[in-house]
C-alpha cells in the first residue's frame, strides 16, 4: 500500500520533531542501582548492570527475568549513563537508534524520577532501576552504588 505526499511536507514534519526534543539537565550525584527485594539478588557488578541496561542481559545475575527501568532525564540518569554505561546522551541515543531501527531491540522503560523508579521496582518482580542514593528506603534493595 502506498501514499504519495508532497516533498515540502517533510520540512514541517522535521520541524515538529525538533519541537518535541527534550533538554537534559546534568548534575553530579551518587546513584544507587536498586532491585525488587523479592528477586533475591544482593549485588551485581557494574559490567552486568551495563549489559542489563543495554539489553545484552535478560535476567538478573542468579535471579529472575529482568524488567529494566531508566529515568528520562536528570542528574541520576547522567551519572548512571556516564559511570556505568560509559556513554553520553548522544552516544546512547545513537546506540538505541541502531538497535531500534534495525529491529534488534528497544530501550528500557522510561519513567520521570526517583519516585517513579521506586514505584515500578517495588511493584514489579525482577525490576531493576537506579535513583539518587538519597531516595533509597527499605522498599528496594541496593545492589550497586555509582559514585
Amino acid at each position, binding site marked *: *500500500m*502506498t*501514499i*504519495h*505526499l*508532497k*516533498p515540502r*511536507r*517533510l*520540512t*514541517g*514534519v*522535521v520541524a*515538529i*520533531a*525538533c519541537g*518535541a*526534543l*527534550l*533538554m*537534559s539537565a546534568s548534575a553530579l550525584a551518587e546513584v544507587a542501582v536498586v532491585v525488587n527485594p523479592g528477586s533475591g539478588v544482593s549485588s551485581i557488578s557494574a*559490567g552486568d548492570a551495563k*549489559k542489563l541496561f*543495554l539489553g*545484552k*542481559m*535478560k*535476567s538478573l545475575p542468579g535471579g529472575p*527475568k529482568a524488567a529494566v527501568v531508566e529515568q528520562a532525564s536528570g542528574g541520576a540518569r547522567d551519572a548512571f549513563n556516564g559511570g556505568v554505561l*560509559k*556513554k553520553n*546522551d*548522544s552516544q*546512547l*541515543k*545513537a*546506540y538505541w*537508534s*541502531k538497535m*531500534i*531501527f*534495525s*529491529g*534488534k531491540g*528497544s*530501550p528500557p*522503560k522510561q519513567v520521570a524520577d526517583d519516585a517513579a523508579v521506586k514505584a515500578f521496582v517495588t511493584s514489579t518482580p525482577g525490576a531493576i532501576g537506579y535513583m539518587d542514593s538519597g531516595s533509597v528506603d527499605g522498599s528496594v534493595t541496593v545492589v550497586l552504588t555509582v559514585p
Partner: protein
Amino acid sequence: MAKLCRYVLARVVGLGLGLVAMNTVVQAGDWSDDIVVSGFASAVYQRTNEAAYLYGSADEGGIDNKGSFYGSSLGLNLTARINYDVTLFTQLLGEYNEDDYNLHVDWAFVRFELIDDLFLRAGKIKFPVGVVNEYADVSYAYPWITSPNSLYSTQVPIGPQATRNAYSGASLLWNHYIDDFTLEADLFAGEVKMEVADVRELIGGTFRLDWNEQVLLQTSAYQGTMANGLDLSGSGGPDMTVMNDKPHRGLVAGAKVDWNDVVFYAEAADVKMGDLTNMRVRTWYTTLGYRIGKWLPHLSYEDFDRAYGAQRQNFTTLGLRYDIKRNTAIKLELSQIKTPKGNGLFATKPSGDAYRGGFAIDVVF
C-alpha cells in the same frame, strides 16, 4: 504534512490496536508498557554541477545541478512485545522519490526467542549485509548524509548490488556476550523482490564481533538466483532478462571504530552475477573522523569499479556533523567525484570531474 501525520498515525494506531487485540488474547493484562513507538526523519538537500543524475536514473531522478531532496526520509518504528519470548517489529518508511514520498512497510517481522540469545525471525527483514545497512535510512546513526552509495546504493542497474533493502524469509540470530565482547551470527534465507528483478533462493550469513560498542568487525557472504528480470530496452533501459537464472553472489567485509573520539569506517564488497561482466563490482570506502565535543569533521574516500575497470569512479568527501541536541544532528558535505571510465554512479556519462554539496538535518524521536 497534516495528511502525512494523519495517515501515519492511522497506520500506527491500526497496527497498535491489532497488537493490542493479540496481546489481550495472549496475555490478559497491562499491555501499554510493551509497545514502543519510535521514529526518525532526515531532511536532505544535495546538488552537483552535473546535468546527469547522480545515484538515480532518467525515470526516477537523482541529484543533479538543479538540486534535489534525494536521501530525505521519514520513518516510524513500532516494537510490540507480545509476551516474553515473542516480539513484533515493524517500520513504516517514506522516502523521497522523484517528487513524492512513498510510504510503505519497510520491514515487519516476528522474533521468537528460542533459548536465551538465540532468535528465530520471520517476515520481511532488513538485509544484514553492510555495517550500517540495517539502519541505512537512519542518517542520525552515522556520520554521513547518506550511507556511502558506492557500496550501499541499491539502484538498478547502476548501483553495486552489494546489499539489498530487505528480504522476505527467515533468520536465525545468535548473540553471545563475553565481558565487553559481543559475538553475533545471523544466518538468513529467503528472497528479495525488486521492481525490475528478483533474487530467489537467497541464503547467507553475517558475523559480527563487537568490543564495547567501540570496535566492530563484520563480514557477510550470500548467494541467490536472479529471476524475473525485465527487458527495459524499449524505454532506453537495460535488458535485464540476461540476469535470469544467473547466480548472484556477494562478499562484504567491514570495520567500524568509535574510540576515544576517533571515528573510523572501512568496508569492501565483491559482487558477481554469474558470467555477466557488467555486473561484476568491486567497491570500497573508508572514513576517518575526529569528534571534538559536538562536532565531528570527517574525510571519506570511495572507490567504485564495475565490469573489470570499464566503469571507474571515486569520491573524496569532506563532511561535518554537529549534534545540536541528543536527538538532532545537522550535517554538511562536499565531494569531488572523478569518473575516469564510464558513468560510475551517474545515470549518464558526466562531462568531467564533478562536485556534490549536501546539507541535512537528522532527527530521531
